[in-house]
């Protein structure tokens, strides 16, 4: 324990302090300033940036973001659990290949993949063509530039973040525990609810946190797939910084978002997830 090489921590610590901590403090400071006439920053202490968030227009965007993030997390959990379970129960040799397939999308830039989704989802896109060719629909569905498109994009983008921690938890699950429950008269559903789910709770919590946080602050996906009509917090913040040039208001929005995420994570940890991250 004596040889802990504290100097090894120096590079990441310095990086975090100067490239993350200091800018964050700057943003905090700016959030209490006000916008100059031509978009500059006027250093006069004010809480206006925070009070003006309580506007139905902005609250609606916060609410939509929260709602989309919750639904995305739920869908990822429902879709990711069976996938992770199948991978964890596959023969040892094949698990590596299956995990590899899960992370293969990371090989391509997220922006490129999102553009690909635009081609799939647009009115004359692949999805509509296939559905019409199969006779399920007679006129193209409007999916692109709606909440549905954003939801599809978010689920697609963050599903691997759900699958990986779930896999880690399920892979550690002793197979004989499942057999023991089965032997003790549990039906398959009961085996799942009474043994598999409680024992994979750390993975469920870790996966939910990993999907919920980036979903809430998503920017690229709603921008490209949601169009102008579906704005999420991330887009609102970008809008304030780059279009409206109201840096102080953009900063306050950022801090409210951060506080919200922090509160959600703390709630998760208090609810029993502390063990999972320890």
């Amino acid at each position: 324990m004596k040889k802990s090489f504290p100097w090894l921590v120096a590079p990441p610590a310095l990086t975090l302090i100067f490239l993350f901590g200091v800018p964050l403090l700057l943003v905090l400071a700016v959030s209490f300033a006000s916008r100059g006439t031509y978009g500059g920053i006027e250093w006069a202490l004010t809480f206006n940036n925070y009070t003006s968030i309580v506007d139905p227009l902005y609250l609606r965007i916060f609410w939509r973001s929260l709602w989309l993030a919750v639904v995305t997390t739920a869908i990822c959990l429902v879709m990711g659990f069976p996938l992770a379970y199948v991978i964890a129960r596959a023969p040892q040799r094949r698990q590596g290949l299956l995990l590899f397939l899960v992370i293969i999308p990371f090989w391509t830039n997220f922006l490129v993949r999102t553009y690909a989704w635009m081609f799939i989802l647009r009115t004359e896109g692949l999805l509509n063509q296939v559905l019409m060719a199969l006779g399920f629909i007679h006129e193209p569905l409007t999916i692109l530039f709606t909440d549905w498109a954003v939801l599809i994009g978010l689920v697609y983008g963050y599903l691997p973040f759900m699958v990986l921690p779930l896999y880690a938890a399920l892979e550690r699950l002793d197979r004989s525990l499942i057999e023991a429950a089965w032997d003790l008269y549990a039906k398959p559903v009961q085996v799942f609810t009474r043994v598999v789910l409680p024992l994979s709770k750390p993975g469920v919590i870790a996966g939910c946190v990993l999907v919920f946080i980036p979903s809430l602050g998503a920017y690229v996906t709603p921008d490209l797939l949601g169009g102008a009509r579906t704005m999420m917090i991330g887009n609102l913040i970008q809008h304030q910084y780059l279009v409206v040039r109201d840096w102080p208001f953009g900063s306050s929005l950022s801090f409210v978002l951060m506080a919200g995420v922090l509160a959600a994570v703390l709630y998760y940890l208090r609810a029993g997830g502390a063990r999972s991250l320890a």
Partner: protein
Amino acid sequence: MEMRDREGNGNSVELREVTKRHGPTVAVDRLSLTIRKGEFFSLLGPSGSGKTTTLRLLAGFEQPDSGEIIIEGRHMEGVPPNRRPVNLVFQNYALFPHMTVAKNVAFGLEMKGLAEAAIGPRVVEALEMVRLAAKQERLPAQLSGGEQQRVALARALVNRPAVLLLDEPLGALDKQLRLEMEVELKALQERVGITFVCVTHDQEEALTMSDRLAVLQHGKLLQIGTPEEIYRAPASAFVANFIGVSNGLSGRVEGIVGQHATVAVEGIGVIHAPAVAGLVAGAPVLVTIRPERLHLARGPEPDGFQNQVSVRVAKTIYAGNETQYLLTLPNDQTWKVRIPNADGAAKRFQAGESAYLKWRTAEAVLLPE
């Protein structure tokens, strides 16, 4: 239904020509055996003998490729584990780590849909039976290995199954605890009167606890019988070896006169042994003598023993109540002999000494090779 289960032929478990393949290997090969109601039955064999697969077939985790399994008069084909009248005590106990001892034991009754008021007393009763009532609020991780094992037993027995399956029940315990549990497990089985089917690779365990046992190798049944039958008259050289007879001499039958056979062993000479059915002159045989039936003496006087071989003591191991000797025979074979120490220290042999190994004709067993 209940009535039909209870009558029948007194058999608890019946396997008929059961075969199970795992890929290219035949794990269980046309295995037929019958286990009687209320008996402590062991499946004994080395790893890969198919004993664990047999247990899993009985529990229902695997289905036979062919053959029939009948438990309490009911055909088990297509019956999943949760609807079989059996419970399994897992080798690693498989206690649910997120449940207390009491919750673990109550699990089976809860899944059966028993009323909560009925579950409590039965859980307490089962835990008292294994002397763990005081620890019912603990988590499995807070218990010792022996205690965990008793919880696993209680968790299975509380359901009052027709057959209790045990997979290497004492394998994970240290030696002292294992000897205690052997006795305890047998006593428990007699008290509850449930059929126990126990898988083990430990011959001593199987001999101590079982009413009857089956010796398996490569998925085939080699011999079935009481411990005494198998110990006294092993059916083959493999069974003899596995059951703990390490001393054997390979030779050829020289002559048979009535109940008496003589065997020529290269480098040793002629050995006398009781004849067995089917023995013909010239046939290769293995002469086995149980280590505890051998006598070690300093002089070559017959003293009433019909067989003797001159040996050299290679190693002496003092083991409390007995001394174990490793002896080198004239044909360079090494035998292990156990001599009780009651005779006094003066008669013990030291490594390097010459001695004579003697035994009576009746103590030898001839096995066809």
